[in-house]
């Protein structure tokens, strides 16, 4: 492919300027920029920008940063830029996808907004389009249509950009936050934004060229762009896109529209335009950003953008039409530029570019545009870039390899920037937000200046461009041992599958559904060669703000494989559709022909089921063989001496009293209580009694229910009695001397009680069960806690709890375990009761309501969430995938009832699942594979519902493409799940070896097959560059660490968490985020619910980042640490912590006071934002530099060396050694 050619240049560049290369790599990651200084400068100046910029900087940054830099740099940059573009394109694409999915979930309006918003970022993303076929068409389209309009568009876009940027600035944060914000921040942002689009254009251009040479890649990008666009435009799907484009164009400038129309591929172009427009609109629409914010809510990272989109939504729709065009223009221009390179292409490209406005036309437009477009551009902000394009054309010819050059040229021109930015944005949105405004403008100027240089360089660039085109950002080789700042400063986003625009916009949100490989290998042999795990990570019951709910008499499904109709099926004609999983042709039922949304007939492809990859059906009575069960809650409480001493009863009863009315359910909701010590106590709460009646069963060997009824009572009818009981419970056992705990018999009683209905059993246990069935002995040897050799007893001691869980599962009862224990309680055995009944596990080590107030507060917060969150009963989840793929192992809490069916007695929004896949048959005859999860459950209101998620991924045949599509976070989470299984079935050391081998195998497979770089250096594709870091983090995680004192229960709990936490939360547990918080700035901040949330850059987890003058926040998922340095500024300590100086800070501080200062407000809003939407409420510890608690904090600095474990660098050397063996 083109990649090879491209790669050499890059490599050369990297070698010639190792640092640069490194920087570039880092830029991809964190955007270190060409030079370290840039980072600092940019970061400070343009906080958010830096990262993005830096990234750009490689390609763009040079111009932007040093904008005017020497030609040499320019040249080098272009190359980088190209790479960056590609990369960015990929990234952006991914981001777009991510965004779009969200959008999809959201209401149409919102979605649209999102899409639009996203588009801007996407524009960069658009590059991804290159991936596929769509791209080529797009490019053509661009070419044809773009010329005239492009210039105009550019102009328009420029203005739009400005407006957008301004608006973005205000809004920006929310959405992509950093990214958008950055763009918005300033014109600079726009430039960046526009650039992204441009880059996209470049890709197109490249595609054009490539099309000649290797069109595929670029086309893909185009597609991605278009997809992005489409995603943005979502409201108007493919068909709509053209209209939108038109609108946009119209709004923007008539020209572009016509041109597009001319292009025919219009859809693609339209998409592009849309994307562009979309991007612009977002920028323009600060409101939109806000919208995005709202959207963002669902997912934190993603969330941000979404949030912005919400705001946008209103504005967006309006703005989108107008604004979108501008963005589109910008984007187009880049494209145009790309096309320009090739002379033929140029002409076409010019045309197209003009039409497209910004993208491809650049070069073409340059000449023509320069005259007209440029001025406009300049006036707008993009003007400078426009001129560049003009020069570009010339260069492009020179490069003969026109395709490459053009693309390169285009990229350099700043179009590249845009793309890069998007990518960056994806990677490091926050940065952008930082210093957007000023940088952006300056960047433009720079660009303009650069452009000339660029032109000169263009030839060189052109050569590079090919390479870049060939090599997507995700394939850029990164020299791990030389890359100091591997961690991006912004949260890592999921890569976007390399699909065409339409599919991209339709695809499922990565928050709900992720695959470890976004490019599915064609054969098992290829997968084996890549040495990467293939699997899915699911979060199927996630809280969604927008979810299309469909009520219909017939749910359309494939007749052979029972797949639900989804956006990825194909309609053969109006009456028939072809299943995308088994390829059977099905009839479209009459009812499906009518679209209730548009009230039109005969458009089955516009039904919501076919427009959204996440939908929920209200199932008909066919889906139930008994009436939907009521919500039934049973609380099984330990009231032995130990439990009373710990004092959890007070907190539980208080929480229950407060949330009694918020328990999900309807009028049939039932509730019951069982307490136990050495006997079992039941409570008769039958309506009509004057007070609760306690019934004691002391025969624990043969438990029976004292009364068949009235132990589970209707919540509403017996509310007073329940309240009486809850008020009395905490004091009823205060004088108990019973130390035994008959948990097993109590659970058997609970099972008997729940059998007729099913429901949820919440078990509170504080010690080892010591009586009756299921009694356990202490198995932990404290002397072995820090053993480096064998960790025993990770498996259950008895089958009792497992068997009980299976019985419960069969009766649709889930058991949730709250373990509040100060000593060893054999969690590995007790956890079985939840694991196999689809329950959840909460663990509070050394819980005491007064001695350990932070744990008490944690319990309180988590109980609140636990009691009020959504719940689904008697659920089953089936996962289907395209013929040829098969699932083998499942991870999570459930019972596997059939090879693809999970039985879930309860489903809660915080449950995550993982599935391992294998490829049984060659997928050579298909280009796409789909995965569908269908979750059938009974809602707390007694409705039977089916939630369906569908994910579509491309199939690739080359190893390089497989590596390009790795989703490193998903891969790590899947590996962690597999390692837990391995630890339990064989041994912990075996699991640790397997983790290290996973890195060694994949990196050596990469270096031996994909990259032709010598083996003396440790090279990873950019998509995998975080892989060793994350694996090291896993090895130092509580679950897998050795050599550090770890209590067995803590370890087992960490393993349970790995098994059942969804990816977003799991990643924080594996690799915490470190922020410096003593000088939070509003730059790059996002808006959430009227609050300004600062977005400090993420620091790498190393003590070298800690300075005594600073204060740092570490977000470990379920714990926050604030580390205060010895010489920390007293104003920070006073303003935020509320103490006059460092010495006066208490050793145990778990709260931040609400002070009336700006920095306090910022810090608290940041922490609150981090806390939101987490299933586990994090405890906050303020750790002083000299306090003993700091060891806890330092344990999480995983890049540093500890007595028992490697530092990151040592780990890399170890891997390298292993590879060389």
């Amino acid at each position, binding site marked *: 492919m083109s990649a090879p050619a491209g790669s050499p240049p890059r490599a050369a560049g990297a070698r010639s300027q190792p640092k640069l290369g490194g920087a570039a790599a880092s830029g991809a990651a964190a955007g270190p920029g060409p030079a370290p200084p840039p980072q600092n400068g940019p970061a400070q100046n343009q906080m958010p920008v830096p990262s993005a910029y830096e990234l750009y900087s490689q390609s763009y940054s040079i111009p932007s940063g040093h904008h005017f830099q020497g030609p040499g740099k320019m040249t080098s940059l272009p190359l980088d830029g190209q790479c960056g573009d590609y990369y960015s394109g990929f990234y952006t694409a991914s981001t777009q996808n991510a965004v779009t999915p969200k959008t999809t979930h959201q209401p149409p309006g919102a979605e649209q907004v999102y899409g639009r918003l996203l588009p801007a970022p996407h524009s960069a993303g658009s590059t991804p389009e290159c991936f596929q076929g769509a791209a080529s068409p797009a490019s053509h389209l661009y070419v044809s249509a773009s010329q005239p309009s492009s210039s105009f568009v550019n102009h328009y876009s420029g203005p739009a950009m400005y407006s957008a940027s301004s608006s973005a600035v205000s809004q920006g944060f929310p959405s992509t936050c950093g990214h958008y914000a950055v763009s918005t921040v300033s014109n600079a942002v726009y430039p960046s934004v526009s650039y992204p689009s441009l880059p996209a254009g470049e890709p197109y251009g490249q595609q054009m060229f490539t099309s000649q040479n290797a069109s595929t890649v670029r086309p893909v990008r185009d597609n991605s762009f278009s997809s992005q666009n489409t995603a943005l435009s979502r409201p108007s799907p493919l068909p709509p896109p053209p209209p939108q484009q038109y609108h946009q164009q119209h709004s923007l400038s008539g020209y572009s529209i016509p041109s597009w129309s001319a292009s025919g591929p219009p859809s693609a172009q339209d998409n592009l335009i849309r994307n562009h427009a979309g991007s612009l609109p977002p920028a323009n629409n600060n409101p939109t950003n806000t919208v995005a914010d709202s959207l963002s809510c669902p997912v934190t990272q993603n969330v941000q953008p979404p949030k912005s989109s919400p705001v946008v939504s209103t504005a967006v729709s309006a703005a989108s039409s107008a604004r979108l065009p501008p963005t589109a223009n910008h984007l187009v221009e880049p494209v145009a530029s790309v096309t320009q390179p090739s002379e033929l292409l140029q002409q076409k490209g010019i045309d197209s570019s003009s039409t497209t406005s910004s993208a491809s036309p650049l070069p073409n437009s340059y000449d023509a545009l320069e005259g007209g477009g440029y001025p406009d551009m300049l006036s707008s902000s993009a003007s400078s870039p426009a001129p560049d394009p003009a020069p570009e054309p010339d260069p492009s010819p020179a490069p003969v390899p026109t395709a490459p050059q053009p693309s390169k040229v285009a990229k350099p021109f700043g179009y590249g920037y845009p793309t890069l930015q998007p990518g960056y944005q994806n990677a490091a949105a926050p940065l952008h937000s930082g210093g957007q405004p000023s940088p952006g403008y300056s960047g433009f100027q720079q660009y303009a200046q650069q452009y000339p240089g660029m032109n000169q360089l263009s030839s060189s660039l052109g050569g590079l461009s090919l390479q870049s085109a060939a090599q997507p950002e995700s394939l850029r080789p990164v020299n791990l041992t030389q890359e100091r700042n591997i961690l991006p400063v912004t949260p890592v986003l999921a890569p976007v599958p390399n699909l065409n625009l339409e599919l991209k916009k339709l695809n499922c949100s990565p928050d709900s559904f992720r695959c470890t490989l976004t490019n599915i290998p064609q054969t098992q042999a290829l997968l084996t060669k890549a040495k990467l795990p293939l699997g899915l990570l699911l979060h199927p019951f996630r809280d969604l703000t927008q979810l299309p709910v469909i009520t219909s008499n017939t749910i359309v499904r494939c007749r052979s494989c029972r797949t639900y109709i989804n956006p990825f099926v194909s309609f053969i004609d109006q009456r028939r559709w072809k299943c995308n999983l088994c390829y059977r042709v099905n009839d479209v039922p009459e009812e499906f022909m009518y679209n209730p949304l548009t009230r039109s007939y005969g458009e089955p492809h516009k039904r919501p089921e076919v427009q959204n990859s996440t939908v929920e059906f209200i199932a008909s009575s066919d889906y139930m063989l008994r009436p939907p069960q009521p919500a039934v809650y049973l609380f099984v409480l330990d009231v032995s001496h130990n439990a009373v001493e710990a004092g959890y009863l007070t907190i539980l009863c208080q929480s229950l009293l407060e949330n009694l009315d918020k328990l999900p359910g309807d009028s049939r909701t039932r509730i019951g209580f069982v307490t136990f010590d050495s006997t079992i106590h039941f409570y008769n709460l039958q309506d009509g009694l004057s007070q609760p009646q306690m019934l004691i069963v002391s025969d624990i060997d043969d438990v029976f229910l004292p009364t068949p009824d009235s132990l589970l009572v209707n919540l509403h009818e017996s509310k007073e009695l329940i309240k009486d009981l809850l008020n009395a419970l905490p004091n009823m056992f205060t004088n108990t001397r019973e130390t035994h705990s008959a948990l097993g018999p109590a659970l058997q009683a609970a099972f008997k009680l729940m059998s007729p209905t099913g429901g949820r059993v919440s078990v509170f246990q504080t010690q080892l069960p010591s009586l009756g069935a299921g009694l356990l002995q202490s198995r932990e040897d404290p002397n072995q806690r820090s053993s480096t050799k064998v960790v025993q007893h990770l498996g259950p001691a008895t089958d009792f709890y497992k068997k009980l869980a*299976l019985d419960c599962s069969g009766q649709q009862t889930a058991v949730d375990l709250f373990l509040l224990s100060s000593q060893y309680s054999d969690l590995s055995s007790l956890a079985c009761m939840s694991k*196999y009944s689809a329950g959840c596990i909460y663990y509070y080590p050394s819980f005491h309501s007064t001695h350990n107030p932070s744990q008490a507060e944690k319990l309180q917060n988590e109980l609140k969430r636990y009691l009020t969150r959504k719940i689904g009963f008697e659920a089953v989840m089936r996962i289907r995938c395209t013929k040829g793929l098969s699932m*083998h192992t499942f991870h999570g809490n459930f019972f596997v*009832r059939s090879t693809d069916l999970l039985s879930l007695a309860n489903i809660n929004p915080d449950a995550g699942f993982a599935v391992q896949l294998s490829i049984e048959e060659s997928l050579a005859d298909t280009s796409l594979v789909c995965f569908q999860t*269908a979750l059938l459950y009974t809602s707390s209101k007694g409705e039977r519902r089916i939630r369906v998620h569908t994910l579509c991924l491309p199939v690739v045949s080359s190893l390089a493409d497989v590596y390009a599509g790795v989703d490193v976070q998903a891969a790590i989470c899947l590996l962690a799940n597999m390692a837990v299984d391995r630890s339990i079935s064989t041994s912990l050391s075996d699991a640790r070896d397997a983790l290290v081998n996973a890195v060694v195998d994949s990196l050596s497979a990469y270096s031996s097959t994909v990259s032709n770089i010598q083996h003396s250096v440790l090279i990873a594709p950019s998509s995998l560059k975080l892989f060793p870091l994350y694996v090291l983090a896993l090895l130092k995680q509580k679950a897998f660490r050795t050599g550090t004192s770890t209590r067995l229960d803590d370890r087992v709990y960490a393993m349970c968490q790995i098994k059942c936490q969804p990816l977003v939360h799991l990643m924080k547990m594996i690799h915490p985020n470190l922020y410096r918080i003593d000088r939070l700035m509003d730059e790059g901040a996002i808006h959430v619910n009227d609050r300004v949330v600062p977005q400090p850059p993420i620091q790498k987890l190393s003590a070298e980042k800690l300075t005594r003058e600073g204060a740092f926040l570490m977000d470990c998922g379920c714990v926050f640490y604030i580390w205060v340095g010895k010489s920390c500024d007293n104003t920070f300590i006073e303003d935020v912590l509320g103490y006059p100086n460092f010495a006066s800070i208490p050793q145990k501080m778990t709260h931040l006071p609400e002070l009336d200062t700006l920095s306090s407000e910022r810090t608290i809003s940041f922490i609150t934002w981090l806390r939101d939407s987490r299933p586990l409420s994090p405890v906050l510890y303020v750790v002083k530099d000299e306090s003993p608690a700091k060891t806890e904090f330092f344990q999480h600095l995983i890049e540093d060396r500890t007595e028992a474990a490697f530092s990151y660098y040592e780990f890399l050397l170890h891997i390298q050694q292993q590879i060389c063996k």
Partner: protein
Amino acid sequence: MAFTFAAFCYMLSLVLCAALIFFAIWHIIAFDELRTDFKSPIDQGNPGHARERLRNIERICFLLRKVSARAALVLPEYSIHSLFCIMFLCAQEWLTLGLNVPLLFYHFWRYFHCPADSSELAYDPPAVMNADTLSYCQKEAWCKLAFYLLSFFYYLYCMIYTLVSS
């Protein structure tokens, strides 16, 4: 022509081998039943079906349990096979013993490697439905069937050989 101890061992083995073949076939049928599930989603959504299905899985796993008063299949199989080995050891039939020892060790490993410390189950109901576990179990059953069938004919041959040669 003499009726030696070795000949007696082979005759007994021949009979018991038929029993082992039956066990292997039973395993195959059981796992096949586990693998097959109703394709109708409606059935799967039905709690009644869920219970039935679960009971089915448990029943099969319990039938395969190591020690049981009721229909335990695993322990008899393992003990019969161990008996072979002991008999051949006594009869000093080294070749036959050598052929059986690998399986004997496998059985020991399988017996002592169980889901829980004090587990009675050789097959773990929650895990057995994982496709790779299930396919492993199926393969195991097929391999054993093949092994027992071959050894059946081998014993037959050896029996006749010892009878004739001595």
